[in-house]
């Protein structure tokens, strides 16, 4: 009878040991986790997007691409200007907010699930017709 009672006590100590082990391992795991700062990443991407659009537009290249409906030209330029590992999707609207590149999606792949930075940029054609376009660039980090 005494032996059985002693066994019950041993079981409780083993339980306590396992619960302690569980708590310590959970603690170690949480302390080693690296929390990504999503707001900071989005700010970084927004800054990058503005930078790239300004650079593409500064000599009229972006407006020229849009005037000529050269969507592949925009895609290739973004592929070179943006670092690898950044997903992009660009949409061009006219002044009635009608999508101009409906037949061609200016993107480098499937949208990742992460949050995206979105930049809207006004681009003015250098042609005498004075067209104003709204360019929406969405960026996200892949992986």
């Amino acid at each position: 009878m005494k032996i059985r009672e002693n066994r019950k006590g041993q079981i409780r100590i083993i339980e306590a040991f396992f619960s302690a082990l569980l708590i310590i391992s959970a603690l170690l795991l949480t302390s080693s986790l690296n929390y990504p700062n999503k707001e900071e990443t989005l700010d970084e991407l927004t800054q990058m997007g503005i930078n790239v659009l300004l650079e593409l537009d500064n000599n009229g290249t972006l407006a020229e691409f849009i005037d000529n409906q050269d969507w592949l030209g925009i895609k290739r330029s973004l592929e070179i200007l943006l670092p690898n590992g950044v997903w992009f999707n660009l949409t061009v609207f006219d002044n009635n907010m009608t999508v101009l590149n409906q037949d061609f999606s200016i993107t480098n792949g499937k949208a990742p699930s992460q949050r995206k930075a979105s930049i809207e940029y006004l681009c003015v054609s250098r042609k005498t017709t004075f067209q104003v376009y709204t360019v929406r660039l969405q960026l996200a980090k892949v992986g």
Partner: protein
Amino acid sequence: MPTVSLDTFFACSLMITVIVAAMAATAKISQINIANYGNLNEKSDYFAEIAKKIVLNNGRPQNWGANPNLTLESLGLAESNSHPYALDIDKVSRLNQQNAYSIPYSALWKALGTNYAFKIRIGQLFSISVTKTGQIQHENQTTYWFSVNVEKAGVPVTAAICCYAIGRNYMDSTYVFAQNGEAELNFTIPNSSNGTILLITFARASYNPKVLSYNVYSFYHLTDEIAANETYVRLSPLNYTLYVEPFYQNVTLTDCFLFAYDYNNSLNEIQENVYDIPRLLNSGTMVLVVRGFKGSTFFMEWTAYPQIPLEVGANLEQSENHVFDYIVSIEGFFYDLQILFGD
């Protein structure tokens, strides 16, 4: 007291101790993490502002790049009266420590006015690699074959290629198109032009002519002489002038050339060892080559204007880095700028 009660008491005590200890440790770790994230955000914002200051401001005095007699008071690389992210060709060239008028890191650090170490890298948007794939020597001339690869971080870039070969009493050029980033080209060089041959390659991205890179590949034509670039002279382009500083007394220069995409010409000597660089429209990076002799030894050396790629700053390998990437333009052509801060 029965043994089971004692055992239960010890087990409960142990559990309570562990839970209390775990709560205390969690609170302590969380507090450290929360404080770190706060600091990290503050620091990141601070570094982001400093990086913006470097990229978007002219610095003080405004024309510190072109005039080497001015003392740099505040660091800023932007070109005066230009659009955002346009950098000044001379401010950038003065960051290159190979330029005789370069500004040392200590002076840049002082002019930036920060207590943190930093590094600035400026590079081309994509790279060109040239490999000699074969050669056949004839009685009077030798034909060399090369393969050219154009890529950005391993991804092929379709580009139009303009390539020059220059040697002693010899110059030739060829144009090819690198579909999917690959091209083959060849040059036939007279055997009398033995010595160093420079193969200067420019690649212009097919969809955007403002994206251009260059590469200089040197090889030895029917000779075993090996001399690295800048063995005999130092080449310092600044304010559209090339200053050539010989390292030896018996060095004489014979001529100087400018190479750009679709354009090349010889440069006019305006003073002894000083050449005028013309302002070209839509040229991108220019490669400047001088030819000369040290005694009877022929040499040929080169530099680029703007003097890119470059890297200046502290060694940040052992520290945690805050990195800021920008696409910048110099004289209308795109480059990659990276500013790193060590923490």
